[in-house]
């Protein structure tokens, strides 16, 4: 056992206390938003800082769900997230698998092409013009396909596949598996932890993506929840002259409730995948 002297113990105490403070800094602002969303407007006006509301009120939520706009945008966000993540996982994993195997000629060249995209890109406008030329503006494809593969995740996943023992593939081949069968029946089940991690990364990106829907979806009917969130926050921010005073200012609790509603789905997924992802990140990056 470690001998713990006085300086050791005071070090530990200070360290733990600091970490508690840091944890609070990370979580308190959000907890305050959650609590505030359940408080009445009156209590918010009077007390400013509410961690446990005296009177619970669902008014803000009732207001949000009394109109079709936010629920509909949530459904759209779910749709984009689910479809987009499936596309991401399929594209990334098959490409990573092929590039991890020796049988593929030219894989070093292809890897170079992919790594180079991390160093240089054409910028927002040429990318926009490509999406436009393909006729994808105002379709959900525009927010899913241009992000189908993250080069960074692809490299991590390829490293993971390369860490699988070569004998595995050889014995599968002897048993009469072709690469497709090997991939589906052997490699995928072996990489569930790492797949779950990438699923989380991709899903978070889709759910939180603001820029692509903002660029490519021009009709409010098609907007996911992040864009509406921005509308509500900006409308509610009267500090600036930019947006004119003609817009009605929604109540503080409404802003808070919208933030909660837009964040909750992704926070609900996080605990289920958390136990996997540290492992998943490590597996992919160790060989990096």
């Amino acid at each position, binding site marked *: 056992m470690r001998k713990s002297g006085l300086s050791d113990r005071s070090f530990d105490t200070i360290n733990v206390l600091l970490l508690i403070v840091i944890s609070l800094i990370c979580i308190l602002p959000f907890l305050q938003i959650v609590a505030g969303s359940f408080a009445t407007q009156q209590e918010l006006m009077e007390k400013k800082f509410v961690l446990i509301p005296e009177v619970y009120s669902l008014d803000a939520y009732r207001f949000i769900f009394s109109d079709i706009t936010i629920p509909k945008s949530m459904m759209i966000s779910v749709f984009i997230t689910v479809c987009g993540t499936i596309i991401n996982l399929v594209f990334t994993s098959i490409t990573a698998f092929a590039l991890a195997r020796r049988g593929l000629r030219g894989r070093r060249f292809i890897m170079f092409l992919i790594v180079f995209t991390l160093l240089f890109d054409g910028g927002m406008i040429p990318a926009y013009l490509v999406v436009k030329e393909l006729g994808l503006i105002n379709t959900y494809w525009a927010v899913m396909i241009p992000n189908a593969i993250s080069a960074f995740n692809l490299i991590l996943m390829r490293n993971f596949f390369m860490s699988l023992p070569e004998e595995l593939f050889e014995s599968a081949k002897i048993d009469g598996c072709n690469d497709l069968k090997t991939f589906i029946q052997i490699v995928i089940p072996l990489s569930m932890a790492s797949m779950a991690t990438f699923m989380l990364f991709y899903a978070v990106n889709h759910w939180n993506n603001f*820029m692509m829907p903002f660029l490519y979806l021009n009709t409010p009917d098609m907007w996911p929840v992040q864009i509406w969130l921005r509308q509500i926050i900006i409308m509610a921010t009267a500090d600036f002259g930019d947006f004119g005073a003609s817009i009605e200012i929604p109540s503080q609790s409404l802003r808070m409730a919208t933030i909660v509603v*837009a*964040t909750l789905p992704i926070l609900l997924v996080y605990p289920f995948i958390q136990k996997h992802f540290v492992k998943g990140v490590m597996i992919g990056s160790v060989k990096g």
Partner: protein
Amino acid sequence: MTNFFSNRQRVKGAAAQNLLKDIWRNRWLYIFVIPGVFYFLIFKYIPMGGVVIAFKDYTPFLGIVESQWVGWKHFERLFQNNDFVMLFRNTILISLYKLLFYFPVPIILALMLNEVRLKVFKRFVQTVIYIPHFFSWVVVAGITYVLLTTEGGIVNEFIMWAGGEKINFLGQNAWIRTLLTSQTIWREAGWGTILYLAAMSAVDPQLYEAAKIDGAGRFRQMWNVTLPCIRSTIVILLILQIGNFMDLGFEQIYNMINAGNKDYGNVFDTYVYTIGIKEGQFSYSTAIGLFKSVIGLILVLGSNYLARRSGEEGIF
């Protein structure tokens, strides 16, 4: 003679046949890699080619190929524009702030977490400090607004309570860079510890034992054992950070800037959006984007070169 040629042809034919056979045997790998290759060609390499419109007067009717070449016109306009100085200054300053104030935080945080002996507590802290990473920039902006608004935001209420005067954090040049840097630290610092913690878990425990026998306290162990052992991770992440020097992220900044703070907050990304998408000046805004990308490329290659020169691995 004829015999010789036909022999060579036969050998060639056999090689080609072998190649085809080889491709057929690995056909699924080729099928697997095709969508990915097309993806990168269409969505990454065509836009790279598309930067030629920075040297043309692009009009949608004529398309990229038919539009007129104009040489460096758009770049000259950019460098002569007063906005250029502002954009360059803002981009560099915000990036420098992040390098100075954000970059060390995950390292320090990981060092602290690494010293925690109680596994349950460590896991709890990790779970909590990762959470902000799952908030979108819109949500982060929303939380910032709620906390800092002059109309009943908790921070201003506290300042008033303490006898100070309300500060217009949100609509004022003086505060935007501090706000952006703080937001980045709040959202990313916890998440940033993952790779450092992974690297720390690979440190040989014997090194700590040896250091302890030599009389090293906890701080000395951190300084002389942990930090040197994770140096390559730090260098790689530093290169990546410097590589992203010009990429400050459209989403975060666009959601924070307004009429009151845009002189200090506007950066290349937000400017390209305004000039390009909103005003439709495609060629000019592509020139700005290209300038940004080239500087970024030089920075990442340069920092990688320096890392290799000083005996580190670098990223390529």
